[in-house]
């Protein structure tokens, strides 16, 4: 028999421990230091946004709504507007997504569904490596290797699909025996291809991660019902990963909108609203900043900051939407984008 010495007179009096959620001693220091770091980061990062907004005020006050609708950028004539560069930014990003989205989706599907298990890890690393390659390298690739071929493709598209509005190239004759190369290079189309290389690995990584989280039970259920591999993908993997597909694409879009250096290397600046992406001359907000900041007067600098602020708001909206979609979807709850 066991007996508990409940009333041992020699035992010290048991005192109930004081339980409190308030940190004491080293805990208090830890909590407060951590809070201070968090606050300083909040100030730094939030400060950038607030600062941009504050700097943009004089410009927006001076030019009013026409800042967003005017397409010319002529500081010497006191005409400043970002409609042209905004359209350019969007069209470059759309061209980039036109190439990047299907390729990212297909390669993510290949890695998660078709690749032999032995090389799967290698392929995942390759995609990560592709994401880590500096954008200037893709700029070099786009400028020296891609652009001649892209120009040729543009010429071909113009000849055969010239009736499509945005394949039209003004000031050129598609049927001329000698084609004027200079009218086909440095376009939004060429820049978009280089940017596509940059956003592709990002979108692919998010999609692959979401696909790999497909519940094996559902996969096996589809197989047990007699589905082919494509049947499994179509009925299980793609519906499950829909949030990741949309979210990854939008994250890529956010990156494409803000891409600078490859765009600066490739395009030749043009300030007008145009949707003919094959035509030479385009511009984007970030390229505008990179080219113009050097010899800008304070007023122009404010205008550039305002343009940067608008760009930031657009990317912020796109990224937030992407995060919401990824988090809401069934699959993306713990995918880190």
């Amino acid at each position, binding site marked *: 028999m066991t007996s508990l010495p409940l009333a041992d007179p020699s035992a010290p009096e048991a005192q109930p421990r004081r339980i409190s959620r308030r940190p004491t001693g080293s805990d208090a220091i830890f909590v407060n230091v951590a809070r201070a770091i968090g606050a300083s980061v909040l100030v730094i990062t939030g400060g950038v946004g607030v600062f941009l907004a504050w700097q943009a005020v004089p410009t927006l006050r001076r030019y009013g709504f026409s800042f967003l609708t005017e397409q010319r950028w002529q500081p010497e004539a006191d005409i400043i507007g970002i409609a042209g560069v905004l359209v350019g930014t969007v069209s470059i990003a759309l061209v980039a997504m036109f190439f990047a989205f299907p390729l990212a989706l297909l390669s993510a599907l290949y890695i998660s569904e078709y690749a032999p298990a032995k090389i799967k890890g290698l392929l995942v690393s390759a995609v990560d490596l592709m994401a880590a390659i500096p954008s200037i390298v893709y700029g070099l690739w786009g400028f020296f290797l891609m652009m001649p071929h892209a120009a040729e493709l543009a010429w071909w598209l113009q000849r055969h699909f010239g009736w499509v509005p945005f394949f039209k190239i003004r000031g050129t004759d598609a049927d001329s025996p000698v084609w004027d190369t200079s009218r086909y290079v440095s376009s939004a189309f060429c820049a978009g291809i280089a940017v596509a290389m940059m956003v592709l690995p990002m979108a692919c990584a998010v999609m692959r991660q979401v696909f790999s989280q497909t519940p094996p039970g559902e996969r096996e259920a589809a197989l047990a019902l007699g589905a082919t591999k494509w049947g499994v993908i179509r009925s299980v993997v793609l519906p499950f990963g829909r949030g990741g597909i949309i979210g990854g694409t939008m994250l890529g879009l956010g990156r494409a909108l803000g891409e600078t*250096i490859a765009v600066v*290397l490739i395009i030749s600046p043009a300030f007008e609203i145009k949707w003919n992406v094959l035509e030479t001359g385009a511009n984007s907000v970030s390229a505008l*900043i990179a080219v113009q*900041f050097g010899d800008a007067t304070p007023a122009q600098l404010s205008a*550039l*900051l305002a343009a940067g602020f608008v760009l930031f708001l657009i990317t912020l909206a796109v990224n937030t939407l992407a995060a919401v979609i990824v988090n809401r979807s069934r699959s993306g709850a713990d995918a880190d984008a």
Partner: protein
Amino acid sequence: MTAVETRPDSLADRPEPSAEPKTFLPARDRAQDDDVPPPVPRRAIGAPNADELFARAGAWIAALGMAWLITQRFLPLGGLAWFLIVLLVAGIFMTGLLSSISTTFVEVRDRVAGIVVTAGAVVVGIALVSAVVFVFVRGWKPLTHLNFFTDDMAGVEPKAPFTQGGVLHAIIGTGIQLGIGLAVALPLGVGTAVFMTEVGGRFARIVRTVVEAMTALPSIVAGLFIYTTVILTLGVPRSGLAAGLALGVMMLPIIARAADVVLRVVPGNLREASLALGASRWRTTWNVVLPTARPGLATAVILGVARGVGETSPVLLTSGAANFVQANPLDGAMNSLPLFIYTQVRSGEPHSIGRAFGAAVVLMTLVLALFVLARFVARPRKYRNRPSLRSRVARIRVPRTRTTRNGEAA
């Protein structure tokens, strides 16, 4: 589908069991009943048989012939690119055609989808390899001269041969700027992640929201921010310090967010076990949470660095391009590898472009090294620092007890 196939005759030949069957499937006759669903053909499972293999290989051989015929004989489509495109289209078409002879539409679709998906992955692979190989092929020539690594561009004409000048100043500049950027971004980023996961609360949620929002900040805008505040308002000259700060501002949200993701997946029961043993929260964080997350944290930081190394746009605005070795980040213009590449390419001189490609090879090698380091650090623990089984067995201390002959301890 509740389709029941009519049993093939071979099954009917089986000896009938003596007992009356309890259940039976009413095999409906198509001739009498119009509602009978058509029999579902079974799809082939397992390894492809010889017939299938033959069809697959044959489809591609036919596609090869068609592609040659179309591009070289029928249509004026010269060039390798057209040949490959036509080959792919013909391959898809022939595969579909050949497999539709022997199998069902479901299977045809499966095979075509497989080809399309694989082709997409191959295109991406070719693009990646072409980018890497192209830069290496264009850039290896300057690298063969040792002075490319030991010299700077001071007093070197743009047209000078590769035996003069080098990128030492850019390499040093990249190192210094990255060091400053990391000195800002690493403690603040990881500290914020610790705050967001270990302390928590309403304020932490606000910080997380803002940090996640700021990962959307285009890098050029981060550069513009530093340019306006530090250089124009505070009067610091364009220098390594300003460039480092710009990189820091750019990397801070990236590192903080990645570290937050890593810390969040540390299992909660590890924390609880540590707290239950009486450790303080600081001790728990320092001795349990951070060591557990160390590989992930290292990966997050290294990938952030790899991103920072290659960013040109913030540096373009803030550092100024010196062509000599500048080791003092406070003292005027400094160069860095991406900026060097950018300025050399913009100059348009063939030798400058050659140097730019050489610098790009150096930069890519740097990124590759960082990347391999990240992979190495992130390896699962079991492969590292683990003594062999033999040494572990040898280390087990067996308590020495003298035993007498009849087994009782003395």
